[in-house]
Protein backbone atom coordinates (compact mmCIF):
# COMPACT_ATOMS: atom_id res chain seq x y z
CA UNK A 1 0.00 0.00 0.00
CA UNK A 2 1.38 3.40 -0.97
CA UNK A 3 0.84 6.11 1.61
CA UNK A 4 1.35 9.86 1.66
CA UNK A 5 0.93 12.83 3.95
CA UNK A 6 -0.27 16.00 2.26
CA UNK A 7 1.38 18.78 4.17
CA UNK A 8 0.71 22.48 3.85
CA UNK A 9 3.76 24.67 3.53
CA UNK A 10 1.95 27.98 3.75
CA UNK A 11 1.86 29.30 7.31
CA UNK A 12 3.45 26.12 8.62
CA UNK A 13 6.39 25.88 11.01
CA UNK A 14 9.62 24.28 9.77
CA UNK A 15 9.84 22.02 12.85
CA UNK A 16 6.37 20.63 12.17
CA UNK A 17 7.35 19.88 8.57
CA UNK A 18 10.61 18.29 9.74
CA UNK A 19 8.77 16.07 12.21
CA UNK A 20 6.57 14.68 9.43
CA UNK A 21 9.53 14.12 7.14
CA UNK A 22 11.38 12.12 9.81
CA UNK A 23 8.26 10.11 10.66
CA UNK A 24 7.49 9.53 6.98
CA UNK A 25 10.92 8.05 6.33
CA UNK A 26 10.44 5.55 9.16
CA UNK A 27 7.14 4.28 7.76
CA UNK A 28 7.73 4.60 4.01
CA UNK A 29 5.23 7.44 3.80
CA UNK A 30 5.77 10.09 1.12
CA UNK A 31 5.46 13.69 2.21
CA UNK A 32 3.69 15.85 -0.37
CA UNK A 33 3.82 19.61 -0.14
CA UNK A 34 1.17 21.98 -1.36
CA UNK A 35 1.72 25.29 -3.07
CA UNK A 36 3.20 27.89 -0.77
CA UNK A 37 1.08 30.57 -2.30
CA UNK A 38 -2.34 29.93 -0.86
CA UNK A 39 -3.97 28.91 2.35
CA UNK A 40 -4.59 25.15 2.23
CA UNK A 41 -8.13 25.03 3.51
CA UNK A 42 -10.52 23.76 0.87
CA UNK A 43 -7.88 23.23 -1.79
CA UNK A 44 -6.60 20.07 -0.15
CA UNK A 45 -9.96 18.36 -0.67
CA UNK A 46 -9.29 18.55 -4.37
CA UNK A 47 -6.45 16.08 -4.02
CA UNK A 48 -8.58 13.24 -5.30
CA UNK A 49 -10.75 15.59 -7.28
CA UNK A 50 -9.24 18.00 -9.74
CA UNK A 51 -5.71 16.93 -9.05
CA UNK A 52 -6.30 13.21 -9.27
CA UNK A 53 -5.34 13.25 -12.90
CA UNK A 54 -1.80 14.00 -11.84
CA UNK A 55 -0.20 10.59 -11.93
CA UNK A 56 2.09 11.43 -9.02
CA UNK A 57 -0.96 11.63 -6.72
CA UNK A 58 -2.96 8.90 -8.32
CA UNK A 59 -0.44 6.30 -7.26
CA UNK A 60 -1.28 6.56 -3.53
CA UNK A 61 -3.81 4.33 -1.85
CA UNK A 62 -4.21 6.50 1.23
CA UNK A 63 -3.40 10.13 1.91
CA UNK A 64 -3.42 11.91 5.26
CA UNK A 65 -4.43 15.56 5.10
CA UNK A 66 -2.71 17.50 7.85
CA UNK A 67 -3.32 21.06 9.07
CA UNK A 68 -0.50 23.60 9.36
CA UNK A 69 1.23 23.75 12.76
CA UNK A 70 0.63 20.08 13.47
CA UNK A 71 3.64 18.12 14.70
CA UNK A 72 4.08 14.37 14.95
CA UNK A 73 6.21 12.46 17.42
CA UNK A 74 8.99 10.86 15.36
CA UNK A 75 8.25 7.55 17.09
CA UNK A 76 4.47 7.69 16.57
CA UNK A 77 2.91 4.50 15.21
CA UNK A 78 1.75 4.25 11.60
CA UNK A 79 -1.88 5.40 11.79
CA UNK A 80 -2.62 4.33 8.20
CA UNK A 81 -3.04 0.77 9.41
CA UNK A 82 -5.81 1.82 11.80
CA UNK A 83 -8.31 3.20 9.33
CA UNK A 84 -10.18 0.03 8.26
CA UNK A 85 -10.38 1.65 4.81
CA UNK A 86 -12.76 4.26 6.07
CA UNK A 87 -12.47 8.04 6.23
CA UNK A 88 -10.43 8.34 9.43
CA UNK A 89 -10.97 11.34 11.68
CA UNK A 90 -10.62 12.32 15.33
CA UNK A 91 -13.74 12.63 17.47
CA UNK A 92 -13.01 14.91 20.38
CA UNK A 93 -15.77 17.09 21.84
CA UNK A 94 -13.48 18.88 24.29
CA UNK A 95 -14.29 22.36 22.98
CA UNK A 96 -18.00 21.64 23.09
CA UNK A 97 -18.93 25.34 23.28
CA UNK A 98 -17.13 26.14 20.04
CA UNK A 99 -18.47 23.01 18.34
CA UNK A 100 -22.10 23.72 19.03
CA UNK A 101 -21.78 27.32 17.86
CA UNK A 102 -20.02 26.42 14.64
CA UNK A 103 -22.63 23.75 13.88
CA UNK A 104 -25.36 26.28 14.44
CA UNK A 105 -23.73 28.83 12.12
CA UNK A 106 -23.08 26.31 9.34
CA UNK A 107 -26.60 24.90 9.59
CA UNK A 108 -27.89 27.45 7.07
CA UNK A 109 -25.80 25.78 4.38
CA UNK A 110 -27.28 22.36 5.25
CA UNK A 111 -30.93 22.93 6.17
CA UNK A 112 -31.84 19.23 5.83
CA UNK A 113 -28.90 17.73 7.73
CA UNK A 114 -28.39 17.51 11.49
CA UNK A 115 -25.03 16.87 13.13
CA UNK A 116 -25.06 16.27 16.87
CA UNK A 117 -22.25 17.95 18.83
CA UNK A 118 -21.18 14.61 20.31
CA UNK A 119 -20.57 13.30 16.76
CA UNK A 120 -18.37 16.20 15.70
CA UNK A 121 -14.90 15.36 14.41
CA UNK A 122 -11.74 17.34 13.79
CA UNK A 123 -10.02 17.65 10.45
CA UNK A 124 -6.53 18.46 11.75
CA UNK A 125 -5.62 14.97 10.62
CA UNK A 126 -7.91 13.20 8.14
CA UNK A 127 -7.05 10.06 6.23
CA UNK A 128 -8.70 9.47 2.90
CA UNK A 129 -8.42 6.59 0.48
CA UNK A 130 -9.11 6.11 -3.21
CA UNK A 131 -12.68 5.15 -2.45
CA UNK A 132 -13.27 8.69 -1.19
CA UNK A 133 -12.56 10.30 -4.51
CA UNK A 134 -16.22 11.00 -5.19
CA UNK A 135 -16.72 12.41 -1.71
CA UNK A 136 -13.73 14.70 -2.10
CA UNK A 137 -15.08 15.89 -5.43
CA UNK A 138 -18.42 16.64 -3.74
CA UNK A 139 -16.65 18.60 -1.00
CA UNK A 140 -14.83 20.70 -3.52
CA UNK A 141 -17.98 21.17 -5.61
CA UNK A 142 -19.87 22.25 -2.51
CA UNK A 143 -17.20 24.84 -1.90
CA UNK A 144 -17.44 26.15 -5.44
CA UNK A 145 -21.23 26.40 -5.28
CA UNK A 146 -21.31 28.07 -1.87
CA UNK A 147 -18.22 30.20 -2.10
CA UNK A 148 -19.93 33.44 -1.08
CA UNK A 149 -21.54 32.00 2.05
CA UNK A 150 -18.41 30.10 3.08
CA UNK A 151 -16.19 33.12 2.57
CA UNK A 152 -18.59 35.15 4.67
CA UNK A 153 -18.63 32.53 7.44
CA UNK A 154 -14.87 32.42 7.35
CA UNK A 155 -14.37 36.16 7.54
CA UNK A 156 -17.18 36.94 10.00
CA UNK A 157 -17.18 33.83 12.16
CA UNK A 158 -13.69 32.40 11.51
CA UNK A 159 -15.36 29.16 10.41
CA UNK A 160 -13.11 27.12 8.16
CA UNK A 161 -13.87 23.92 6.32
CA UNK A 162 -14.02 21.59 9.33
CA UNK A 163 -17.67 22.14 10.21
CA UNK A 164 -18.81 21.95 6.58
CA UNK A 165 -16.93 18.66 6.18
CA UNK A 166 -18.79 17.33 9.22
CA UNK A 167 -22.10 18.19 7.57
CA UNK A 168 -20.97 16.77 4.22
CA UNK A 169 -19.93 13.47 5.80
CA UNK A 170 -23.34 13.17 7.47
CA UNK A 171 -25.17 14.32 4.36
CA UNK A 172 -23.33 11.87 2.10
CA UNK A 173 -23.55 9.04 4.67
CA UNK A 174 -19.82 8.46 4.63
CA UNK A 175 -18.65 5.82 7.10
CA UNK A 176 -15.91 7.14 9.32
CA UNK A 177 -13.36 5.56 11.59
CA UNK A 178 -12.59 7.48 14.77
CA UNK A 179 -8.94 7.36 15.68
CA UNK A 180 -7.73 7.92 19.23
CA UNK A 181 -7.54 11.66 20.06
CA UNK A 182 -3.83 11.09 20.66
CA UNK A 183 -3.53 11.36 16.86
CA UNK A 184 -4.70 14.96 16.84
CA UNK A 185 -4.25 16.32 20.32
CA UNK A 186 -5.60 19.86 20.17
CA UNK A 187 -6.71 22.69 22.47
CA UNK A 188 -3.47 22.23 24.38
CA UNK A 189 -3.80 25.52 26.26
CA UNK A 190 -7.43 25.05 27.19
CA UNK A 191 -6.72 21.52 28.38
CA UNK A 192 -3.85 22.69 30.61
CA UNK A 193 -1.58 20.32 28.73
CA UNK A 194 1.38 22.57 27.96
CA UNK A 195 3.03 23.08 31.32
CA UNK A 196 5.09 19.93 31.73
CA UNK A 197 5.07 18.56 28.17
CA UNK A 198 3.49 15.33 29.40
CA UNK A 199 1.42 15.43 26.23
CA UNK A 200 4.51 14.42 24.27
CA UNK A 201 4.68 11.19 26.27
CA UNK A 202 0.98 10.34 26.15
CA UNK A 203 -0.06 11.44 22.68
CA UNK A 204 1.38 11.26 19.15
CA UNK A 205 0.21 14.20 17.02
CA UNK A 206 -0.05 17.73 18.40
CA UNK A 207 -2.15 20.43 16.87
CA UNK A 208 -0.85 23.88 17.80
CA UNK A 209 -3.05 25.68 15.31
CA UNK A 210 -5.55 26.92 17.89
CA UNK A 211 -2.86 28.75 19.88
CA UNK A 212 -2.43 32.34 18.69
CA UNK A 213 0.85 33.16 16.99
CA UNK A 214 3.61 33.95 17.94
CA UNK A 215 2.90 31.95 21.12
CA UNK A 216 2.22 28.84 19.03
CA UNK A 217 5.65 29.11 17.41
CA UNK A 218 7.31 29.29 20.84
CA UNK A 219 5.55 26.13 21.98
CA UNK A 220 6.36 24.34 18.72
CA UNK A 221 10.04 25.19 19.10
CA UNK A 222 10.17 24.23 22.77
CA UNK A 223 8.42 20.95 22.03
CA UNK A 224 10.70 20.10 19.12
CA UNK A 225 13.81 20.77 21.22
CA UNK A 226 12.78 18.24 23.89
CA UNK A 227 15.32 15.45 24.35
CA UNK A 228 12.56 12.91 24.12
CA UNK A 229 11.82 13.97 20.57
CA UNK A 230 15.36 14.64 19.44
CA UNK A 231 16.44 11.21 20.63
CA UNK A 232 13.63 9.65 18.64
CA UNK A 233 14.69 11.27 15.38
Amino acid at each position, binding site marked *: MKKAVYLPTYNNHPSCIESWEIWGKKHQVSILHDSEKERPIWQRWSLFGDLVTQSSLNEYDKIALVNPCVMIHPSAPDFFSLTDDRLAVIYD*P*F*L*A*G*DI*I*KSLEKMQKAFPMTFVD*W*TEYFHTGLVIIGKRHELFCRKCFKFREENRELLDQLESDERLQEQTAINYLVKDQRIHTKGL*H*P*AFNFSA*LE*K*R*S*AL*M*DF*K*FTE*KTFVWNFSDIPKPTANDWIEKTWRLDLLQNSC
Partner: protein
Amino acid sequence: MNDIIFFFPIESDSYYEEKTGDLSLKSWKKWVKNQKNTEIFVHKDPLNHFIHLPKRWHQWFFLDVLDTHGVDYKQVAVVTSQTMIQPHAPNFFLLNSEFFASAYHVLPFDVLIHKIEQVKSYFPQIELDWRRYFSTDFFLVNERHTSSMKRFTEFLEEKKDELSTDAVHPLFNYWIKQEKIRLRFLNEKYHLNMLKERNLLRDEHWMKMAHLWNFSSLKPNIAAQLMTHLHESWGTSS
Protein backbone atom coordinates in the same frame (compact mmCIF):
# COMPACT_ATOMS: atom_id res chain seq x y z
CA MET B 1 -37.31 -5.33 41.06
CA ASN B 2 -36.58 -1.70 40.36
CA ASP B 3 -33.58 0.25 39.17
CA ILE B 4 -32.10 2.35 41.94
CA ILE B 5 -30.53 5.77 42.01
CA PHE B 6 -28.10 5.74 44.92
CA PHE B 7 -27.72 9.44 45.66
CA PHE B 8 -24.55 10.25 47.54
CA PRO B 9 -24.40 13.75 49.06
CA ILE B 10 -20.84 15.08 49.05
CA GLU B 11 -20.02 16.55 52.43
CA SER B 12 -20.85 20.25 52.44
CA ASP B 13 -19.07 22.86 54.51
CA SER B 14 -20.56 25.99 53.07
CA TYR B 15 -23.86 27.59 52.20
CA TYR B 16 -23.14 27.16 48.48
CA GLU B 17 -22.24 23.49 48.76
CA GLU B 18 -25.41 22.85 50.68
CA LYS B 19 -27.40 24.67 48.02
CA THR B 20 -25.82 22.73 45.16
CA GLY B 21 -26.50 19.45 46.98
CA ASP B 22 -30.12 20.44 47.43
CA LEU B 23 -30.56 21.36 43.75
CA SER B 24 -28.88 18.16 42.66
CA LEU B 25 -31.19 16.03 44.78
CA LYS B 26 -34.26 17.91 43.54
CA SER B 27 -33.30 17.19 39.93
CA TRP B 28 -32.79 13.50 40.60
CA LYS B 29 -36.10 13.23 42.46
CA LYS B 30 -37.89 14.87 39.53
CA TRP B 31 -36.20 12.57 37.04
CA VAL B 32 -37.13 9.47 39.05
CA LYS B 33 -40.73 10.65 39.22
CA ASN B 34 -40.80 10.66 35.41
CA GLN B 35 -39.49 7.08 35.10
CA LYS B 36 -41.10 3.70 35.51
CA ASN B 37 -39.67 1.10 37.91
CA THR B 38 -37.06 3.45 39.28
CA GLU B 39 -36.50 4.56 42.88
CA ILE B 40 -34.13 6.91 44.60
CA PHE B 41 -32.20 6.02 47.74
CA VAL B 42 -30.51 8.94 49.47
CA HIS B 43 -27.47 7.97 51.51
CA LYS B 44 -27.62 9.46 55.00
CA ASP B 45 -26.13 7.34 57.74
CA PRO B 46 -22.90 5.42 57.28
CA LEU B 47 -22.76 1.86 58.56
CA ASN B 48 -20.55 1.01 61.51
CA HIS B 49 -18.05 -1.01 59.53
CA PHE B 50 -16.96 1.90 57.33
CA ILE B 51 -17.68 4.92 59.51
CA HIS B 52 -13.97 5.28 60.32
CA LEU B 53 -13.05 5.81 56.65
CA PRO B 54 -12.98 9.26 55.01
CA LYS B 55 -16.54 10.46 54.38
CA ARG B 56 -15.90 10.79 50.65
CA TRP B 57 -15.21 7.05 50.54
CA HIS B 58 -18.55 6.05 52.00
CA GLN B 59 -19.91 6.25 48.46
CA TRP B 60 -18.14 2.99 47.60
CA PHE B 61 -20.07 1.00 50.21
CA PHE B 62 -23.36 1.62 48.41
CA LEU B 63 -24.14 -2.08 47.97
CA ASP B 64 -23.65 -2.72 51.71
CA VAL B 65 -25.98 0.18 52.48
CA LEU B 66 -28.64 -1.04 50.07
CA ASP B 67 -28.38 -4.59 51.45
CA THR B 68 -28.68 -3.34 55.03
CA HIS B 69 -31.82 -1.43 54.13
CA GLY B 70 -33.26 -4.43 52.30
CA VAL B 71 -33.31 -2.67 48.93
CA ASP B 72 -33.32 -5.06 45.97
CA TYR B 73 -32.19 -3.78 42.61
CA LYS B 74 -31.81 -4.61 38.95
CA GLN B 75 -29.25 -1.90 38.27
CA VAL B 76 -27.86 0.77 40.55
CA ALA B 77 -26.75 4.19 39.35
CA VAL B 78 -24.43 5.80 41.86
CA VAL B 79 -24.68 9.58 41.53
CA THR B 80 -23.16 12.32 43.64
CA SER B 81 -24.53 15.70 44.58
CA GLN B 82 -22.15 17.36 42.11
CA THR B 83 -24.45 16.28 39.28
CA MET B 84 -27.80 17.45 37.96
CA ILE B 85 -30.07 15.61 35.57
CA GLN B 86 -32.62 17.04 33.17
CA PRO B 87 -35.99 15.87 34.53
CA HIS B 88 -37.02 14.47 31.12
CA ALA B 89 -33.64 12.99 30.21
CA PRO B 90 -33.89 9.58 28.52
CA ASN B 91 -33.70 6.69 30.95
CA PHE B 92 -30.08 5.51 30.89
CA PHE B 93 -31.02 2.27 32.65
CA LEU B 94 -32.80 1.27 29.45
CA LEU B 95 -29.66 1.87 27.40
CA ASN B 96 -27.76 -0.61 29.49
CA SER B 97 -28.63 -3.83 31.23
CA GLU B 98 -25.56 -5.96 31.59
CA PHE B 99 -22.49 -3.77 31.57
CA PHE B 100 -20.76 -1.52 33.99
CA ALA B 101 -21.50 1.88 32.47
CA SER B 102 -20.31 5.40 32.96
CA ALA B 103 -19.34 8.42 30.87
CA TYR B 104 -16.02 9.92 29.90
CA HIS B 105 -14.82 12.37 32.55
CA VAL B 106 -13.26 15.39 30.85
CA LEU B 107 -10.48 16.79 33.03
CA PRO B 108 -7.56 19.19 32.55
CA PHE B 109 -4.87 17.05 30.92
CA ASP B 110 -2.28 17.68 33.65
CA VAL B 111 -4.79 16.68 36.33
CA LEU B 112 -5.85 13.62 34.37
CA ILE B 113 -2.31 12.37 33.87
CA HIS B 114 -1.48 13.09 37.50
CA LYS B 115 -4.47 11.04 38.63
CA ILE B 116 -3.51 8.15 36.39
CA GLU B 117 0.11 8.18 37.57
CA GLN B 118 -0.76 8.83 41.22
CA VAL B 119 -1.94 5.26 41.87
CA LYS B 120 -0.18 3.42 39.06
CA SER B 121 2.11 1.65 41.56
CA TYR B 122 -0.87 -0.36 42.84
CA PHE B 123 -1.55 -1.69 39.36
CA PRO B 124 1.86 -2.06 37.69
CA GLN B 125 0.54 -4.36 34.97
CA ILE B 126 -2.39 -2.15 33.95
CA GLU B 127 -2.17 0.61 31.36
CA LEU B 128 -4.98 3.10 31.73
CA ASP B 129 -5.92 5.02 28.58
CA TRP B 130 -6.50 8.71 29.40
CA ARG B 131 -9.35 8.81 26.87
CA ARG B 132 -11.15 6.05 28.75
CA TYR B 133 -11.10 7.69 32.16
CA PHE B 134 -14.66 7.48 33.43
CA SER B 135 -16.62 9.52 35.92
CA THR B 136 -17.06 8.31 39.47
CA ASP B 137 -19.84 10.84 40.04
CA PHE B 138 -22.15 8.81 37.81
CA PHE B 139 -21.85 5.11 37.08
CA LEU B 140 -24.08 2.07 36.71
CA VAL B 141 -23.57 -1.39 38.14
CA ASN B 142 -25.69 -4.50 38.45
CA GLU B 143 -25.58 -7.75 40.40
CA ARG B 144 -22.79 -9.11 38.19
CA HIS B 145 -20.48 -6.58 39.77
CA THR B 146 -21.34 -7.30 43.41
CA SER B 147 -18.31 -9.42 44.24
CA SER B 148 -15.93 -7.05 42.48
CA MET B 149 -17.36 -4.04 44.32
CA LYS B 150 -16.98 -5.94 47.57
CA ARG B 151 -13.32 -6.62 46.81
CA PHE B 152 -12.84 -2.95 45.97
CA THR B 153 -14.12 -1.84 49.38
CA GLU B 154 -11.84 -4.42 51.02
CA PHE B 155 -8.94 -3.01 49.03
CA LEU B 156 -9.78 0.52 50.27
CA GLU B 157 -9.96 -0.74 53.83
CA GLU B 158 -6.59 -2.44 53.51
CA LYS B 159 -4.86 0.60 51.98
CA LYS B 160 -6.66 3.31 53.94
CA ASP B 161 -3.51 4.56 55.69
CA GLU B 162 -1.58 4.93 52.43
CA LEU B 163 -4.13 6.56 50.19
CA SER B 164 -5.17 10.17 49.89
CA THR B 165 -8.92 10.76 49.80
CA ASP B 166 -9.00 11.75 46.14
CA ALA B 167 -6.91 8.76 45.01
CA VAL B 168 -10.05 6.67 45.04
CA HIS B 169 -11.25 7.95 41.66
CA PRO B 170 -8.28 6.76 39.60
CA LEU B 171 -8.09 3.66 41.77
CA PHE B 172 -11.61 2.73 40.77
CA ASN B 173 -10.77 3.30 37.10
CA TYR B 174 -7.83 0.93 37.42
CA TRP B 175 -9.91 -1.51 39.43
CA ILE B 176 -12.56 -1.90 36.75
CA LYS B 177 -9.86 -2.57 34.16
CA GLN B 178 -7.97 -4.99 36.38
CA GLU B 179 -11.14 -6.95 37.08
CA LYS B 180 -11.73 -7.18 33.31
CA ILE B 181 -15.19 -5.72 33.72
CA ARG B 182 -16.71 -4.67 30.42
CA LEU B 183 -17.17 -0.93 30.45
CA ARG B 184 -19.80 0.78 28.36
CA PHE B 185 -19.37 4.49 27.77
CA LEU B 186 -22.62 6.39 27.66
CA ASN B 187 -22.99 9.34 25.29
CA GLU B 188 -21.16 12.47 26.42
CA LYS B 189 -24.54 14.11 26.95
CA TYR B 190 -24.71 12.04 30.13
CA HIS B 191 -21.75 13.86 31.63
CA LEU B 192 -21.21 17.44 30.52
CA ASN B 193 -18.55 19.00 32.72
CA MET B 194 -15.70 21.54 32.74
CA LEU B 195 -18.14 24.09 31.40
CA LYS B 196 -15.77 27.05 31.67
CA GLU B 197 -12.72 25.45 30.05
CA ARG B 198 -14.83 24.06 27.23
CA ASN B 199 -16.10 27.54 26.30
CA LEU B 200 -19.63 26.67 27.34
CA LEU B 201 -20.39 29.60 29.59
CA ARG B 202 -20.41 32.31 26.92
CA ASP B 203 -24.10 31.70 26.30
CA GLU B 204 -26.83 29.30 27.40
CA HIS B 205 -26.33 26.44 24.95
CA TRP B 206 -24.96 24.29 27.77
CA MET B 207 -28.41 24.17 29.35
CA LYS B 208 -29.93 22.44 26.31
CA MET B 209 -27.14 20.23 25.02
CA ALA B 210 -26.89 17.63 27.76
CA HIS B 211 -28.94 15.22 29.84
CA LEU B 212 -26.66 15.31 32.85
CA TRP B 213 -24.17 17.89 34.10
CA ASN B 214 -21.30 17.60 36.55
CA PHE B 215 -20.41 20.88 38.26
CA SER B 216 -17.47 19.62 40.30
CA SER B 217 -14.86 21.65 38.39
CA LEU B 218 -16.47 24.95 39.38
CA LYS B 219 -16.18 26.99 42.55
CA PRO B 220 -19.20 26.29 44.79
CA ASN B 221 -20.64 29.79 44.43
CA ILE B 222 -20.46 29.62 40.60
CA ALA B 223 -21.82 26.07 40.60
CA ALA B 224 -24.70 27.18 42.82
CA GLN B 225 -25.50 30.08 40.48
CA LEU B 226 -25.51 27.88 37.36
CA MET B 227 -27.43 25.07 39.00
CA THR B 228 -30.07 27.51 40.24
CA HIS B 229 -30.41 28.92 36.73
CA LEU B 230 -30.78 25.41 35.30
CA HIS B 231 -33.30 24.43 37.95
CA GLU B 232 -35.38 27.56 37.35
CA SER B 233 -35.33 27.05 33.59
CA TRP B 234 -37.20 23.77 34.03
CA GLY B 235 -40.00 25.53 35.91
CA THR B 236 -42.41 23.70 38.15
CA SER B 237 -44.05 21.66 35.40
CA SER B 238 -41.12 19.24 35.16
